[in-house]
Every structure is written in C-alpha cells, then in structure tokens.
C-alpha cells in the first residue's frame, strides 16, 4: 500500500526569487521533505494526501515525498526506518508507545512548536506527548471510547441509557432475560479486553490510580485492582458477554450486534463506520458514556491520540517543523477530522467538530465530561511488555474468572520486572 506522491515544483527557480529567499524567513522552504505515514486505510490516506497537497501549495519550492505504509506493518517497520533511513516526518502514537523511541534518541525534541498559543490550544494531549520536560511530537486526531448500543433494542425492552453501575446491571439483566447478550466483544487480539479494564478501573478507582497503575507505581495485587476485577466479574457471572469471544477479532464480533444477538459494544468511535456499513441506521445505534461505578470519582476517558513526529535523523528539520505546525493548526484539524474525512475529533481546542451525532457526543464528553483526565489506552499507557502480559491476563480472566489470583500474581511479577 505504498505509493509515492511526488510533488515537484522546484524545477525552475528564477535567480531573483532565490535572492529574495536568502533574506526571507522560515516561510520559504526548499529542498526535499520526506514523510512516512501509516494512514493506509482509504479515508485516512486521502486525508494525508490532501494535507501534503495543501502544504505543497503553501511552499511551492518544497519537494514533498509521501510514502504511505500499511498501518499494521508500519508498527514494526518504524524500528528499521528510524535508524536506517529516517524520513523528515513520521506518524506514530502518543504516550508509552513513543517512549522507547524517545529514550533511544530517535525522536526530535519539538518543544518549540508547543511554545506560546499552541500550548493552550493542544493542552488536552500535552501530557501524552511529554517526556521529562520536553515534547516529542504533535497530535492530529483522537477519538472517544464508550458504549455503542442498539437503541431499538433498548426501546423495545423499555431501557434507557444508564448512568450508574446499578442501572447498567439492571439493563443487562433485562436483556439477558430476553435472550440477548449485553455486550459483544472479540478478544482474539486481546486489546479489546484492555478497553474494558481501562474503564472498569478508571470508574472503580479513578483516573489517577489508573495512571499510576499503568505507570508501574501501583501493585496489581492491591485491593483497588481486586475491586475492579470484582466489578468485572459481576458482568461475567451474569453471562453478559457473548460466548467464545476469545475466537473472534473485533470485526468478527460486530455481527452479534448487527444481528441483535448482543445489545452493545464498548469500543472506539471507529466501530460506527462498519456498523453503518452493515446496515444499521443512526436511529438504531446510539452512544453513552461508560457509567459511574464508585460515586463521586471524577470520570476519566480513553481517547487514543495519533501523532506526527520528527525523527532525529531527519534531513530537513526546518521544513518538518513547519509541516507539524501546519498539521496542528485549528483550520487544518477542523478539515481533516470532519465526517467526510477522518470522522474523528480534532485535538486543537479552536477547531470545530463535525455535525455527526457520535462526534458531537464524543466531543462533548471529552471536553466537559471527563474531569478525571484522558488516558491513551491500556496498550499505549503501559510499556509494551506490561501491556502484552496485562491484556493476556484480562482475556484469561474473562474466560476463567477463577484464575484471578494467579493472573494478578503474574502481572505483579511482570510489573516488578518491567519498571
């Protein structure tokens, strides 16, 4: 899925222009700008190509080379190209996912971009891009997580969107009594279970505890963590989740919701598109924020942020910085995140959000309904080894809840090793 889009305008440069460029400011960029991107799905790809085109028009002397790499393959390939043939700009993810690269000195310190107004405009994700006192990348989009549910099924059984754990359980019991599973989930690739853990733990113990836990500062065998799993177990014992979920990917779990065998799905906003494609209308699907569990705890939310970085080995860092500034501008973020493009949320506080009902609700939720804080996602907040062990444990717990003690001891052992 690699295509090279060459936008070459630098063929002829009159002497006069060159002369004026000598004294001009950073606005006149020249040379090559090499961008590696993982935005390989059709819509994101068009967005990326559009950004390159618009940036190219602003800087006609710049020769931009865009290479789009398959999103999954990119995750391992980045290790090679950052050292072997670094581009000037590269996509990646925030928080712990970027940490090894920052520590290996492979990402450039871009704190200068975050100075001044930008610091305010991008405040919501600043923490996720900060290591020590410096920032190592900029965000271009994020999306909410939450419960997507079949409104028609809820109506049919007289259910309303729950806000407390008791209501959640009561709703679920009604559904189960009518032969419908409460939640669909496919845990074959583990991370979906990570979403459940994030929410249950943030609601049971609060965002701060969750952040400390993923940061290795809390024990996995603590009473707090056990309380989280006890709540989870309530759902498992009720039979709330679909059977045999360990066999399915997240996409393979969608039909259960589409066919009405399960009523809801704790997922990222990207689940909306395939649900619509499968034939569900916006009247049939709706969204609610994950309910409160421990009363009074400020709610934290998962909102994974996708980012741009400048590799340390970049050749044209000046142009790269300018591109990053362009990416984070309110105007650009409004455009690339609208329903016709990414269909996600802009990070810049001055951008406007698309009219799409899920995006509106998500934006509302993240900007005013998440006073606790914004987490990235379990596998981005925790270091790779901890994330892998953790999510494997969550899957095991969902199948064999009785193994909990054993699982938690293993996770604690992993924590001792990793941090």
């Amino acid at each position: 899925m690699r295509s090279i889009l060459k936008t070459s305008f630098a063929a002829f440069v009159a002497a006069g222009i060159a002369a004026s460029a000598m004294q001009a400011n950073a606005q006149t960029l020249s040379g090559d700008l090499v961008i590696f991107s993982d935005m390989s799905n059709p819509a994101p790809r068009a967005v990326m190509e559009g950004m390159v085109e618009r940036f190219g028009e602003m800087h006609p002397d710049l020769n931009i080379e865009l290479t789009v790499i398959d999103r999954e393959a990119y995750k391992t390939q980045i290790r090679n190209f950052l050292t072997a043939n670094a581009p000037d700009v590269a996509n990646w993810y925030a928080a712990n996912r970027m940490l090894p690269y920052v520590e290996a000195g492979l990402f450039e310190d871009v704190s200068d971009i975050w100075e001044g107004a930008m610091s305010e405009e991008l405040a919501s994700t600043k923490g996720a891009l900060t290591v020590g006192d410096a920032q190592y990348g900029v965000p271009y989009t994020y999306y909410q997580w939450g419960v997507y549910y079949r409104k028609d099924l809820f109506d049919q059984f007289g259910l309303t969107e729950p806000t407390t754990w008791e209501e959640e359980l009561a709703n679920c019991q009604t559904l189960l009594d009518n032969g419908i599973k409460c939640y669909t989930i496919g845990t074959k690739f583990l991370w979906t279970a990570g979403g459940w853990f994030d929410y249950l733990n943030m609601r049971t113990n609060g965002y701060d505890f969750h952040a400390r836990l993923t940061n290795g500062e809390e024990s996995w065998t603590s009473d707090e963590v056990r309380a989280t799993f006890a709540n989870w177990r309530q759902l498992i014992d009720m039979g709330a989740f679909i059977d045999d979920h360990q066999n399915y990917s997240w996409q393979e779990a969608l039909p259960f919701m589409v066919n009405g065998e399960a009523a809801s799905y704790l997922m990222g906003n990207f689940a909306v598109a395939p649900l619509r494609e499968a034939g569900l209308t916006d009247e049939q699907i709706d969204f609610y924020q994950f309910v409160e569990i421990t009363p009074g705890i400020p709610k934290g939310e998962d909102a994974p942020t996708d980012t741009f970085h400048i590799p340390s080995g970049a050749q044209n860092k000046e142009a790269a910085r300018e591109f990053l500034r362009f990416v984070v501008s309110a105007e650009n973020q409004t455009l690339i995140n609208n329903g016709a493009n990414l269909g996600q949320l802009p990070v810049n506080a001055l951008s406007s959000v698309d009219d799409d009902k899920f995006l509106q609700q998500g934006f509302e939720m993240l900007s005013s309904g998440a006073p606790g804080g914004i987490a990235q996602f379990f596998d981005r907040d925790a270091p790779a080894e901890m994330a892998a062990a953790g999510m494997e444990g969550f899957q095991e717990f969902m199948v064999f809840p009785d193994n909990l003690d054993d699982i938690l001891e293993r996770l604690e052992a992993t924590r001792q090793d990793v941090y």
Partner: protein
Amino acid sequence: MFPTPVQKSSPAVRVGYQAFLPLALFLWLLPLIAVMIFSIKPDVDFTTGNYWGWPSSFEGFTNYGLVFFESAMPRYLLNSVLITVPTVIGTVALACMTGFALGVYKFKGNLLIFFMFIAGNFVPFQILMVPVRDLTVDMGLYNTKTGLVLFHIAFQTGFATLFMRNFIRALPFPLIEAARVEGVAEWRIFVYVVLPLMKPAIAAMAVLIFTFIWNDYFWAVVLTQGPESQPVTAGITSFNAQYRAAYHLMSAGSIVAALPPVLMFFLMQKHFIAGLTLGAVK
C-alpha cells in the same frame, strides 16, 4: 508386493476396496473440498449459518471476480512469481556448482563443508531472523523482492547441495576420469559432462524449491510488508484483515494462492516425488 494385492483376494474384498477408495479420499480431502465450496457460496450463507450445506446460490464468478479484479491478489501472485522463479534459478545454479565440487573432488574439509550445508539447512529460522532482517535493512533491501530472493537462495542452497552432491556421487565416475585423461579442463567437465547428466536432478530440485518458496510465509513476514513486495502467502493474511469473516472471499483467495504449486505438482509429479524421497530408498 506388500500388502497382498487385492486382485488375489476374494471378490468381496476387491469390490469393497474399490468402493472404499473414493470414500477415503473424500474424507481425507474434506478440508479442501470445504474451501472449494466456501469459495462459490454467497455471503448470506454465512450470516444465516449455512456454513457447510449446499450453496444457496452459485457465486463463484462474483467471488473470484472480486479476488482477481478488486483486491491486491493479482499483485501478490505476481510478486510470488518474481520471488520464486529467481530463487529457483539461483539455488539450482549455486547448488550444481557446490554439489559438483563436493561430489567429484577429494580434498581436505570436503565432508566438513558438506556437513555445514546440511546442518545449516536444519537450523530453526528464528535464530537467523533478526540478524538476517538487520542485514537486509543495512543493504537497503528490506521490503524488496531482491532481499527475499537473496536470502532464499542462500538458505535453499543447503538443502539443494545435499541433494546434488549425492546425485553426482551416484554418477559413473570413470566418465570424469576419462575426460581428465584427455586433458579436458575441469570447468568443461562440469559443463559438458556432468551438467547434462544432472538434468533429472535439476528438474526435481526446481519443482521442489518452487513449492517450498511459493509456500514460504515466515520469511515473507520478516523481510517484506505490503503489496509491492509481499508474496501471496503473506498477502492472504492482509486479505483477511480486509475481508474479515468474509469466508467466501478468503476461500477464493486461498484457492487462487494454492493453485500454482498444485499445478506444478501435477505437471512434474515424477520429479517432485523423486526430489522429496531422495534417500528414502537405498
């Protein structure tokens, strides 16, 4: 002949055997037959749970049409050809030479080098994985067909050398002696005396390596990514990601991917089996 030929048994046994053969074959190939039927089923059969029954309608053309015209499959197939064919040529060329050197000459270290090739051939891939990947990256060949081909040639040379050397050993040595007595240069002996006699071995080696390389999945995952250089085995898995749970399309894709080695096997059956069973008969 063992077991006793059925012709010598009672008519009941004979008929029973003849009748049981197709049944046994059907059971043995059931997984394959299932994919073939999957590949002509319509999408709705899977949502209605009619997985293993008769297709509710024939959608073979639609499914295969999609695979051929609307997916990256043709590209993956082409990549597989462009990876497999050069590997076969390269390996056979190298192995003829090493096999000749080890089979004809007596010199110190002959057996040692021979054993190095054999031992290397059995090494677990994983111990080579990271160094080979780094080497390929350093040469600028990561995610290129060339990078994959070079490694395959090197690795397959081990197995092919074993085969070629044993084959050459079995050739009549006096033929070479006679040529030497006449003062023929050694390389000419290779080209004009030995090579022509090696044709069956070359054919056997070629089909076998073709199949091995075509079916390689591990190295394709380690050294390449994306439709511009990945072969069809790795392509199928990304095809999965694209059409997750679309069993009919994945089946059609699998059949298309499996076809070339199957054809190769049927066309060159004798050579294929000769290659595989090397050493099984003394």
